């Protein structure tokens, strides 16, 4: 390396590049190790979820069972099945041996690698030994949960509710944010403050009359109360888009205006293409929020389980199967897999959007 050459001619000091680089390397690896440790502990429940969902439920209570999905190992010899145990041998090593002839104080074992090679005598109580386990993914939990939940139907319900709600939330927010960011009209600032103040209004204050009206309209038990209200602009989304629209140079609007474009044309061909990154963010925001939502489906779909989304259906599933953690963890994976996958995929799109806008400005 070329960088190492110069220090040789200089006296070694505390500030020599090599030392400095070494010190920095130590600091970076120390900090990164610390972060790895913290993030591993932080995400440990995910490992718990995955391993539990692939376990047979008997493994949860079995003594000496490993933390990963596994089954007690057996060996077939001359048409008979023999269980394998982890046996400590007199020479200090341990081996997996098949219990051929169990006895109280001493037993006869077979070597699973070479059963024809004769038996091994071992003195000790075999009942005190741990069975030998081998890794095995038990996938029946997913099959059972899939069927019990009617998962494809739940997925369809959730996608329709979240998808149509997102269409409504995004289109209305674009419209309202465009109005607030590009037009001067009397009372604009007051109305915008009013919009922002609705953020701290708890949902519960308006929920009961809204529920009563939807019930009177016959909308309870349908998806309409979970979709229609989002077509009227939500304060968070409007705020985010308005702030973004304000950063788009007005010269672009004016250039389009000179070409004879009206306000809607400008929105469609100037503002929306320029604000793609923010619009994608609002889409994801509402989609995740709707996928997650529990309170509203709980009250509006109380009487109609066939219209339920994943959230409330999985909560009910938990009530029924609370004694079977393996099934519950499989259901949890099924409920989270799509939002988490979308998050990791969209993460890249986000980064690209940020990089692009950074390069252009």
């Amino acid at each position, binding site marked *: 390396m070329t960088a190492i050459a110069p220090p040789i001619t200089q006296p070694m000091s505390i500030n020599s590049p090599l030392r400095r680089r070494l010190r920095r390397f130590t600091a*970076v690896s120390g900090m990164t190790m610390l972060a790895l440790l913290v993030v591993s502990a932080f995400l440990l429940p995910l490992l718990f979820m995955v391993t539990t969902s692939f376990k047979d439920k008997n493994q949860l209570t079995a003594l000496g069972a490993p933390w990963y999905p596994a089954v007690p190992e057996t060996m077939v010899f001359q048409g008979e099945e023999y269980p394998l145990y982890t046996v400590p041998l007199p020479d200090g090593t341990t081996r997996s041996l098949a219990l051929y002839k169990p006895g109280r104080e001493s037993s006869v074992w077979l070597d699973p690698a070479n059963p024809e090679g004769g038996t091994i005598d071992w003195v000790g109580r075999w009942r005190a030994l741990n069975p030998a386990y081998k890794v095995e993914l038990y996938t029946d939990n997913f099959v059972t949960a899939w069927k019990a939940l009617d998962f494809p139907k739940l997925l369809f319900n959730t996608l329709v509710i979240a998808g149509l709600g997102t269409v409504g939330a995004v289109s209305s927010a674009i419209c309202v944010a465009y109005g607030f960011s590009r037009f001067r009209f009397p009372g604009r600032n007051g109305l915008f403050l009013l919009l922002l103040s609705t953020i*701290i209004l*708890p949902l519960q204050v*308006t929920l009961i009359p809204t529920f009563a009206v939807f019930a*009177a309209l016959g909308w309870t038990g349908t998806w309409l109360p979970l979709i229609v*209200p989002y077509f*009227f602009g939500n304060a968070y989304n409007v705020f985010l888009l308005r702030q973004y629209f304000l950063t788009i140079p007005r010269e672009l609007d004016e250039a389009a205006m*000179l070409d004879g474009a009206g306000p809607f044309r400008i929105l469609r061909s100037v503002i929306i293409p320029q604000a793609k990154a923010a619009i994608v963010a609002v889409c994801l925001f509402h989609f995740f929020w709707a996928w997650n939502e529990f309170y509203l489906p709980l009250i509006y779909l109380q009487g109609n389980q066939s219209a339920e989304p994943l959230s409330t259906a999985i909560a009910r599933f938990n009530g029924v199967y609370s004694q079977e953690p393996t099934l519950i963890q499989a259901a949890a994976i099924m409920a989270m897999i799509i939002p988490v996958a979308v998050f990791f995929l969209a993460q890249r799109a986000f980064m690209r959007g940020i990089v692009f806008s950074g390069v252009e400005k």
Partner: protein
Amino acid sequence: MTAASGSAAGPTIVELQGPRSSRFSLATRESLAGFLYISPWIIGLLLFTLAPMIASFVMSFTNFDPRSPGETQFIGLANYERMFRGILGQPGGDPLIGSSLFITVRFAAILIPVTLGFALAVAMLVNSTLLAGRNIFRTLFYMPMQIPIVASTLIWIGMLNASTGWFNKILSSVGVGGPDWLNSVAWVAPSLTIMGLWGIGNMMLIFLAGLQGIPTELYDAVKVDGAGRFSTFRHITLPMLSPVLFYNVIITLIGTFQYFTQAYIIGNGHGDPAGATNFFNFHLYREGWAFYDMGYASSLAWLLFAIVLVLTIGLFKSAGSWVYEAGGDR
């Protein structure tokens, strides 16, 4: 700015001077277009916010039951009397409201400092120039936010299970006997606080933005003065972060008073164990949708609103003494 928009700016200004003769009609047309574009929100505000607010206020003086709306009667202040007698522990009051408020306030008092502290620590960790792969760590610390709350609650129910969960297995491997977390009246709030650590994602990102906004000259200046790490944190980082800290406190506070899903699932819809998950918002839900006493539930909703409003205003009033504002002398 792009080259295209820059060159477009020139002729635009010149040519716009021309057709400005009918200025009044242009301004009116602009106003009309503006109102047209914000009209979805205005209609929504009237239909889904203002009208229901008035209706909910009126309802709080009635015995409205959605199963028999025709028999609704005005009952004066009876709902509020029941509420306040309950809070004061007097006979004839709601027997559960006092405990539900206490449970909620106590939870807020634990959850807010713990999650804020953790979020700030994580933000400082993933902001450190000494950390390799910072973006990966940011993504991983944010990720649990994207797990639906129902799913994450189920994961934690499994994790905290006294006999089969890993939490107690890890504790017992170091010789500590863990409690029966979610089934114990004393331990359910700490359990929910541990679960709350998975919700730091947004707070962390806001802290991160705040940390990145602190001018590095400030750090250089105190370094020259020979300030230690703690003193730098205490006298530079914390004051400079106080606006985002303030924002996070308000958002978390409002959220805690509306805490519901975890309480519903862990309490099996009954506030188990022994009413320890009877959070205020859950209590409201039960009055409205389990007992169908929607008149009383409306009065509870207004109490919730009043509490949130008072706390928010109180925090804003106190902000002057602890929130640093750049250019606050003006």
